[in-house]
C-alpha cells in the first residue's frame, strides 16, 4: 500500500472518529494538528447535516434541530457517503432512524423519512417523461409519469410535512389523522406533487407501475367495490391526474 493511500485512510478514519491509537499517532506524525482535524470534522458534519436537512424536512421538524443533528452525527459515522453527489446521500437514513432512541415513535419517524425521501427522489427526476402506452381498451392507452411512486402510509405523513409547528403536536398524537392512506408522488414543474389515492386507485397504479397490464390492474383494484364504482374512482383519481395521460393509439383491434 502506498504511503499516500495509508495517509488518506488514516485521515478518513480520524475524521469519522474511528481511528486506532497507532493510526492516530501516524496521523499526528504527518503533522495533522488537532485543530485542523476539528475544522475538517465540522465541515464534513455541517455539509452532511445540510444535505439531510434538505432531504428530510419532516424528520427535522419532528426531531428539532438538536435531535436531528444528533441523528445525523450518529448516522454519518456509521454510513459515510459512498458518492460525491450528496443528493443521493441518505437512502438508508429512514431505516437507521428505526434504531434511534427518541421520544417520537420510531415507526412514525421511519414513515416520515420514507415519505420525505420519496418526495426528494421524485423532485430530482426529469420532468414530463412518460412511460410507453399501456393499452386500456380498443384504441385507448394510458401513459404514467416515469417519476410516479405510490405508497401506503399508516400515519398522516403528508399533513405532518405541511403542518405548522403549532399544529404538529396534535398530528403526532394522532389527532385528526386519517387511517392508513395511499399517496402518489411524482415530479411536476417546480418540484414534486403529492396526491391521496383511494385503495382502488392505488391498487391500479401500483399494479401498472409493477409492469402489469391494464386488465390485471383493474382486477386488482376492485377490492370490495362493485366494478362501476371502482372504474369511477380510477377515472377520477388516476385518469384525471397530471401523472397520467390518456392517448389514442389508433388500434381498432377488439
Amino acid at each position, binding site marked *: 500500500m502506498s504511503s499516500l493511500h495509508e495517509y488518506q485512510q488514516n485521515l478518513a478514519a480520524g475524521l469519522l472518529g474511528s481511528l486506532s491509537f497507532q493510526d492516530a499517532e501516524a496521523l499526528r506524525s504527518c503533522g495533522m494538528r488537532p485543530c485542523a482535524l476539528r475544522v475538517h470534522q465540522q465541515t464534513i458534519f455541517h455539509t452532511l447535516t445540510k444535505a439531510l436537512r434538505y432531504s428530510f424536512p419532516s424528520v427535522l421538524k419532528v426531531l428539532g434541530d438538536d435531535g436531528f443533528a444528533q441523528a445525523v452525527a450518529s448516522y454519518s459515522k456509521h454510513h459515510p457517503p459512498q458518492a*460525491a453527489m450528496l443528493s443521493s446521500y441518505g437512502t438508508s437514513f429512514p431505516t437507521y432512524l428505526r434504531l434511534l432512541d427518541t421520544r417520537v415513535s420510531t415507526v412514525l419517524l421511519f414513515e416520515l423519512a420514507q415519505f420525505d425521501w420519496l418526495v426528494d427522489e421524485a423532485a430530482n427526476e426529469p420532468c414530463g417523461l412518460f412511460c410507453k402506452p399501456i393499452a386500456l381498451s380498443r384504441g385507448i392507452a394510458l401513459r404514467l409519469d416515469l417519476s410516479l411512486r405510490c405508497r401506503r402510509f399508516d400515519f398522516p405523513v403528508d399533513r405532518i410535512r405541511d403542518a405548522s409547528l403549532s399544529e404538529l403536536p396534535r398530528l403526532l398524537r394522532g389527532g385528526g389523522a386519517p387511517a392508513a392512506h395511499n399517496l402518489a408522488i411524482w415530479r411536476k414543474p417546480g418540484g414534486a406533487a403529492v396526491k391521496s389515492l383511494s385503495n382502488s386507485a392505488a391498487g391500479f397504479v401500483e399494479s401498472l407501475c409493477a409492469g402489469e397490464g391494464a386488465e390485471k390492474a383493474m382486477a386488482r383494484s376492485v377490492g370490495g367495490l362493485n366494478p362501476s364504482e371502482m372504474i369511477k374512482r380510477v377515472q377520477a383519481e388516476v385518469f384525471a391526474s397530471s401523472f397520467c395521460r390518456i392517448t389514442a393509439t389508433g388500434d381498432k383491434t377488439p
Partner: protein
Amino acid sequence: MNSALHQHFASGGRSIPASTGIGLRPPHHAWVIERRPPVSWFEVHAENFMTHGVLVDELDSIALKYPLSLHCVGLSVGSVAPPEKTHLHRLRELVARCNPDLISDHLAWNAVDGMHLPDLLPLPYTEEALQVVIRNVHYAQDVLRRQILLENPSRYTNLAHSTLSEAEFLAEVALQTGCGVLLDVNNLYVSARNQDSDPNRALTHFLGTVSAQCIGEIHLAGHTIAEGDGTRELLVDDHGSRVCPDVWGLYGEAVAILGPVPTVIEWDNRIPIFSVLEEEASIADSLMTALGVGEAARVVAA
C-alpha cells in the same frame, strides 16, 4: 500553457470577461432570473446541478443570459483512486447542457476506499501525490474533453512529508497536464497565516512559481478566526463574510502582476442579500480599473 493542449481542450462557451463575477447560490436564483442584475458572469457549484431537479431548470434560464463557470468539489483529483466515473459523466452532461466557459475543482482529495467525505482534505505535496494528481487531471480532462482549472485550497496544517511547495506542485501539474490554475487569494492568505508564513511572501512565491498564463481565474471570499491549538488562532475559510482588507491588498498585488483575470466573489454561509455580493464585486472591479488592468465595464444581461 501548452498551446496544443489548450487548443485541444478549448472552451465551447461564451467568453467570460476579465472582470468580477459572482458565485451564485440557490437562494439567489429567483432574484437573478426575475431581475437580471448587471453582473458580468456567474459561477455555480456543479454538484448542485447534477440531478434533474428544479435547480437545473433555473440554471438553464440563467445560462441563457450570463456566461457561466462550473466550480466542482467532487472530482477528488488528489485521491489514490481515479475520479469517480459516474460523477465525471454527470459533469460531462452538465457541461454539454450549460456550456460553461470555465470548469474548476480543487487541489485536494475527499474519497478513499469508496467513501466520500464532503470536504477539501489536504494532500501532502510529495512526488507520489504529484503523480497521482497528474494522472487524475489527465483522466478528468480526457473524459470532459475540456481543460479544468485547479484551485489552491485553504490549509489548516503543514503536512510534514511535503517536499514541494503548493505553488511548485500546482505549476508542475499545470505543465504536465495543460490544466489551468485558479488562484484563491483568500485561501492563500488563510493557508499562509495557519502555517505561520507571511501572506505577502506566499503570494510573491506563488506568482513567481506558477506561470501567469496558467492562472485563468481568481477567487475572493471571507474567512473567520477561530481558536486553534493552545494560544494560536486558526483562520477558517468559511465563505461567510466580506473579503477582509488584507485579502483585498493581496488581490490588488495579484492583479497588478497578472493583468486582467476573471474574478469571483464567493459566499456560501450566512448568505446575504444579493446587493452585498454586488458591492463586493464592484470593489474588485474598481481595484482592477484603478490598476488599469480590468475590463471593468459590466455586461448588462440582455
